[in-house]
Structure formats: structure tokens, C-alpha cells
């Protein structure tokens, strides 16, 4: 194993890391055919349960939209207790700072006045919502549900040790938590004995924490707030998750057509007449929330919603305008935000990032395209991205033109060698690259994180792209209890 690779399970080809010992011993005892049968069983159950996602633009042979399973890998990703404790602190710190930043940006803008973040980065940003300026939110919280993407990679120039880096913050409508929960459920169903042998921290209480978080930020006038989940509908790729979370929390799953605004409140149409809605966990992007203010052609939202929101008569989770803080052009400033708002040293590291908008950085990017990962500032889901070392000369040239045409639209980072984890592939078990998305809940009573998160795995050999839309799979994530 080279020094540029870090495997979660093996320190060397025949040396299992301590926190994986128990599992590795168990795995060695499992006959191949039993594991194969378990894999098939898992797939059958996922399909019957309908844990599928729709693929944008894809059609099956009959011309209907396709529903795909996200491949589930049987080998868990295991995180030792001490590593998790430090990561948990780092996540709380980071998300707290990001929320402080959002509040600041939409109020006094002290961080701009202090010259830490350039003013044009904010006010010229399409994700900055002038409608939110001066709007006070309960607890000053904007991102109630945050998904922080973390990777582990060898420390440059280090001696084989690796460190966690935050790859990006997702503060708009982060998804994937249902897979975290379903993967655990599946593992417990397939291998109950494993959970008797290993002390794995539970995650199943996430929906309770989520509901508690949502209720904690309800408008001041409510005693027993009505919480709903707002979905774009069953053809959205994450529809399963929307329905799942609504069901687990025991709240209504609504679509825009179910809501209307009257007398400064938001109501839903029920079989017994209109019912007032107090908190909306919305899984619809800002642009589609209110056709009177944002995209006028949207049928996914509710006309007049923003007005009610600004009056404080309904809460949206996450708040409108959080995109300005998870934009890839803002990401490089997060460590400074932590110091500015909290007076603390950042616990979680950022990946060194070059900004196309800075002339020096741009020069560096263009000179080193073949070694860098270049990303569109507003891209998501693994689209609009160049992985230099894996790209052809032609792809690199295309990207060079794109970056030159609009330098401020791109950032670049060194190609991190994501850590790998043993994974079932066609020919047995082989290392595949993984990342991790823990989910951070921020409410009036503080920050809560269930131990673990969603581990995504790039199933293609050598691939660093873990997104499900690009053929990624998932793994159960174990945080071992101390």
C-alpha cells in the first residue's frame, strides 16, 4: 500500500487496523455464498421497500422514467470513538460559525466590514437573498439541517497518516439521511450477530431529533406547532426520503398545491377544512418556494409564502438564503469565520482551495489543470467537475476554455486521494474510495448530531466521484462506542 493511499481497514495488506479487528475476524469466517445470498437479499428488500431514486433525464426501454437502487455495500465503514468525538466537536463548531455568518450577512455584515470576506463575494452572489435582509429568525438559526461532506486523505508529505478534511458544506436541502437510517436497518436485519459483538452507536433516533429541532424554532405564537415536510413531489429524485422522514416524524408530507396563504398565515387543505401550518421542513429549493417573489413559473411552492415568512408567522427549515454560505466560493473563508465569530481555532480542516476570481490562483489553476480537481462554484451532484488526473487531454482543454471564459465561476483543489474501504465488487472484495456526510441539526436547544452519517462509495475502480447520480453506492457507517 503506497503512502499516498489510506485504507480505513488495513494499515498494511496483512495488517488490520485495531478498530476493524473484530469485524475482520467475523468477515473471514463468512462463506462466500452466504455473503452473496445476503447481497441479493438486501437488493430484493430495497426494491420491494421502494428505496429508489429517480435519475434525471434517464428513461428505461419502455420510455418511462427510471427508478434506480443506490447500490448498498455490506462492509461497514467503521469510525473509532476518539476520532468521532473530535469530528463531532469540529462539526458543531463549523455549523455554529456558519449560522452566525448567515445571521451576520443578513444583518450587520460585520465580517464584511472587518474585511475578512470580500463584500462583492456576498452581494454579487446569486445565492444572496436581499429579501432576507433584516429578517429575524428564532435563535438566529438559518441552517437547521446541515450535511457536511468529509473525506479522509493522507497528509501531504506525511508518513502514511491521514486526516479528515471538509470537502463542502451543504446548507440548502442536504439529502441522504434516509440512506443512513435504511442502511443501518438493513445491516441489523442481515447480520444481527454483528451488532451483538460490536458496540455500534445507534442512529435510529434521528427523526425524533429532527422533529424536536423543527418544533424548537416554531413561530413564537404557537403552542403545539403543526410541522409539515414540503416535497416537490413523487417524481423528485429524493422523494423516497421526503416520504420517509414525514412518516418517521408522523407529520404530513405536503406539496405546494396543498398549501395556500390567507390572512397572513399558511394553511393546508385537509378533509376537514383549512389547517394552519407553522413549520415547513422544505425540500424545495429557494427559487421554487414562492412564485410571487422567485421563479414565477414554479408550481412547487406556495404563492405569498415569503411574505408570511418575513412576518414570522411560519418558519422555513432551512431558511431562505442559506446558499450564500455553502457556495464553493465562500468555502475557503470558513476557517476564518470560525475564528472571527467564535474566537476558536478550527477543529476540522479545509482542503486548500484556489479561487478562479483571484488572478494568482487563476494562473496556478490553468498551469496545473492535470493535477487539480476543478469545480463549478454553483455545481452540485458531481456534475460540472473536472478530475484532472483522470481526464483526457481533450476534457482538460474544454475545461481550460470554460475557466478562461468565466474564471470567477470556478475553484480548484489538489486531487485528494480519498481514503478507501474494502468493498464488494464483481471479483470479490477490493478497496474503493469513500467519503462521509454527517447530518448536523441546529435548533433553539443547540446542536445535535447522530453518531455517524452517510458513507458513500465510488464503486468504479479508481473513481473519486461518490455521488449516487454518478454510480456511487452507500455503506453503513459505524461509530464505535468508547
Amino acid at each position: 500500500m503506497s503512502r499516498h493511499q489510506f485504507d480505513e481497514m488495513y494499515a498494511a495488506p496483512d495488517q488490520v487496523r485495531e478498530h476493524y479487528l473484530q469485524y475482520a475476524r467475523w468477515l473471514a469466517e463468512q462463506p462466500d455464498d452466504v455473503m452473496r445470498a445476503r447481497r441479493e437479499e438486501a437488493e430484493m428488500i430495497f426494491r420491494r421497500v421502494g428505496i429508489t431514486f429517480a435519475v434525471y433525464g434517464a428513461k428505461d426501454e419502455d420510455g418511462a422514467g427510471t427508478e434506480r437502487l443506490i447500490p448498498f455495500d455490506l462492509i461497514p465503514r467503521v469510525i473509532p470513538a476518539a476520532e468521532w468525538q473530535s469530528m463531532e466537536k469540529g462539526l458543531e463548531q463549523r455549523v455554529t460559525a456558519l449560522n452566525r455568518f448567515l445571521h451576520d450577512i443578513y444583518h450587520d455584515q460585520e465580517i464584511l466590514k472587518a474585511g475578512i470576506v470580500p463584500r462583492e463575494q456576498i452581494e454579487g452572489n446569486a445565492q444572496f437573498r436581499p429579501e432576507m435582509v433584516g429578517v429575524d429568525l428564532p435563535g438566529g438559526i438559518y441552517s437547521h439541517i446541515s450535511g457536511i461532506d468529509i473525506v479522509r486523505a493522507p497528509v501531504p508529505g506525511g508518513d502514511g497518516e491521514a486526516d479528515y478534511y471538509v470537502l463542502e458544506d451543504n446548507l440548502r436541502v442536504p439529502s441522504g439521511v434516509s440512506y443512513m437510517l435504511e442502511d443501518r436497518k438493513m445491516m441489523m436485519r442481515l447480520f444481527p450477530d454483528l451488532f451483538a459483538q460490536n458496540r455500534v452507536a445507534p442512529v435510529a433516533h434521528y427523526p425524533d431529533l429532527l422533529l424536536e429541532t423543527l418544533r424548537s424554532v416554531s413561530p413564537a405564537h404557537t403552542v403545539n406547532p403543526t410541522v409539515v415536510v414540503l416535497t416537490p413531489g413523487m417524481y423528485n429524485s429524493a422523494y423516497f426520503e421526503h416520504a420517509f422522514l414525514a412518516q418517521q416524524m408522523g407529520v404530513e408530507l405536503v406539496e405546494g398545491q396543498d398549501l395556500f396563504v390567507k390572512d397572513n398565515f399558511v394553511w393546508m387543505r385537509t378533509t376537514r377544512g383549512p389547517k394552519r401550518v407553522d413549520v415547513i421542513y422544505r425540500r424545495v429549493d429557494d427559487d421554487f418556494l414562492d412564485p410571487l417573489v422567485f421563479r414565477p413559473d414554479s408550481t412547487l411552492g406556495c404563492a405569498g409564502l415569503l411574505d408570511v415568512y418575513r412576518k414570522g408567522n411560519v418558519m422555513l427549515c432551512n431558511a431562505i438564503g442559506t446558499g450564500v454560505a455553502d457556495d464553493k466560493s465562500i468555502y475557503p473563508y470558513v476557517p476564518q469565520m470560525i475564528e472571527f465569530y467564535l474566537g476558536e481555532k478550527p477543529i476540522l480542516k479545509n482542503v486548500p482551495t484556489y479561487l478562479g476570481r483571484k488572478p494568482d490562483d487563476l494562473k496556478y489553476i490553468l498551469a496545473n489543470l492535470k493535477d487539480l480537481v476543478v469545480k463549478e462554484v454553483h455545481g452540485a451532484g458531481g456534475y460540472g467537475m473536472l478530475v484532472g488526473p483522470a481526464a483526457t487531454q481533450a476534457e482538460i482543454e474544454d475545461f481550460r476554455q470554460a475557466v478562461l471564459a468565466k474564471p470567477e465561476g470556478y475553484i480548484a483543489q489538489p486531487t485528494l486521494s480519498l481514503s478507501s474501504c474494502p468493498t464488494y465488487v464483481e471479483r470479490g472484495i477490493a478497496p474503493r474510495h469513500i467519503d462521509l456526510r454527517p447530518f448536523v441539526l441546529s435548533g433553539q436547544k443547540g446542536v445535535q448530531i447522530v453518531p455517524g452519517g452517510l458513507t458513500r462509495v465510488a464503486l468504479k475502480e479508481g473513481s473519486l466521484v461518490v455521488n449516487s447520480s454518478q454510480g456511487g453506492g452507500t455503506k453503513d457507517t459505524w461509530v464505535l462506542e468508547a
Partner: protein
Amino acid sequence: MLSRTADHLFWMSRYTERAENTARMLDVNYQTALLPQSAAVAKLGWEGLLRISELMPAYEFLHGEVNSKDVLDFMVRDASNPSSIVSCLMAARENARAVRGALPTEVWETINHTWLKLSQMLKDKDFERDPAKFFDWVKHRSHLSRGVAIGTMLRDEAFYFYRMGTFLERADNTARLLDVKFHAVESDFYGAASEQDQEYDFYHWSAILRSVSAFEVYRKVYRDVITPERVAELLILRADMPRSLHASLQGVVANLGRVSNSISGETERRAGKMLSDLQYGNLDEIMETGLHAYLTQFLDRVNELGGRISRDFLVPEPV
């Protein structure tokens, strides 16, 4: 509960029920067509079946001449026909998917599994290989999803709208079945003169009974030869016959009463009136009106009732 959720539940059960009844009718026609009979008689049976769902024009446009292979194809696997089994089960599944969070996991899994398995069976030509087995399977899956729902759903509004859809659809389907069958008898309602015709009549009426699982019920209740009047009485007026119009309306009224809201009074009154007409009606009276006229009127009233339920609960006008 959310109106849209109630709407999806209502239609989920309607489509499941419709798929079942379509399978029942196809099954009986298919079995009857295997009997020695003239091609003309067999064709009559298929034509009647198409008229039931008002699908004659659509069928003729696609296939022209009525023959058993094309009709079966059209009614089972043609996704462009909204009443085909594949369309109904897909609609049931899409409605279930839209409210999967409001359904017990087992109910959703059953309906989803039905759909996935159906797609596979049609692909594998299971239906063409053994139609009778296929129809049995459709019926069985309908029994199963109904049973799982009754066995697992909380008795709240979701359940009442779900059940209401089943009963309303069943009232509609049974009425159509009767209407078409009585129409199909060329030798007039009051039976056959020749011996051959009498024999044909027996198969004809027993086919109707079998299509609503009432053949054995008939024997048990009447202990006598099968006559058209009694078939009509059994399937219209008997409250103890679970697929009769009377029993179906009882189901509609009972569930409607449980979800009653501030604007549904008139709808409840009309449903109640339909029920009492069945409760206190008798066959002579119906025959006086004429069976076809009676059933046509009944279908209109069912249709209107469906519209009213929609307006009062499922798709309310903006306030």
C-alpha cells in the same frame, strides 16, 4: 388529514378494485369462450366486456374486429387503455407511492411488489402462457392488499377514505357487469325457448355469478335452478352478498359517515338515499323500471356521488 392524501388513498383502492373486477370479468369470459359455442356467441361476450367500460370505440380504433386475443391484450397489457389491468395496477401503485408515508409499510410493500411482479410477468409472457393463472394472481394480489390494509391500518380517516374508494368502485363495477350481461342476452331477458338456448343461458348466468364469486352463494341462498331474476336480486338487493350494490352502498355510507365535515351533509344525504332505495326496494319494482334503465340511473348516481365526495373532501375549492 391532507385532502390530497385522502384523494390518493381513495383512488389507490379504486384502481386496485377495478383491476380485480377486470380480471374477474376477463377470466369468466375466457373460461366461457373455451366452451363449445358458436364464434358469434363468443364474440358477443367480448363485445359486452368492452362495452362495460365504454371502451368499444378505443378498441375498434386500435384493432378493428373483435377477437379474443386482441381483447385480452387490450384489457390486460395495453398501457394506452386506462382500464387495462396494467394501467389500473400502475395507477394504484403511483397513488400509493404518492402517499407511502401515510400507509403502513406493509401496505406499500404489498402494492409495490404487485406492480414490480406484474411488470416482470408481462415481460416474461406469463399471461399468454396461462391466462387463467394470471387472472387468479391479479385477484389474489387484490385480496392480499385489501387484507393487509384491513389488518394493519389505523382506523382513522385514511382508512375510511381507502375503504370508501373500494366500495364505490365495486358498486360501479357490479352494476356495469349486470347491465352488460343482461344486454348481451339476445333471447330477451325472460329466457330461452329452445333447449340449446336454455343450456346457453345456464352457462351465461353461472358465468356472471362466478365473476363475482357468487355461484356457490347462489346455490346456498336459493337452492334452486339459476334464473335471471334471482341473479339480479342477489347482485342488486341482497345485503349479505358482499359484492352486491346494496352491500357496496352500505360500505360507502358507513365510511362517509365517519369522515363527515361541515360541507358534506348533502353528499351524505344522497348516499343515504341511494342506500335506502336498495334497502327497501324489490325486484318487481326494478323490473317495472326496466333493468337497463334502472342500472343506468344507478351508475349516474354513483358517478355523481364520486364527484361530490371529491368536491367535499378530496379536491376542495380554494377558500
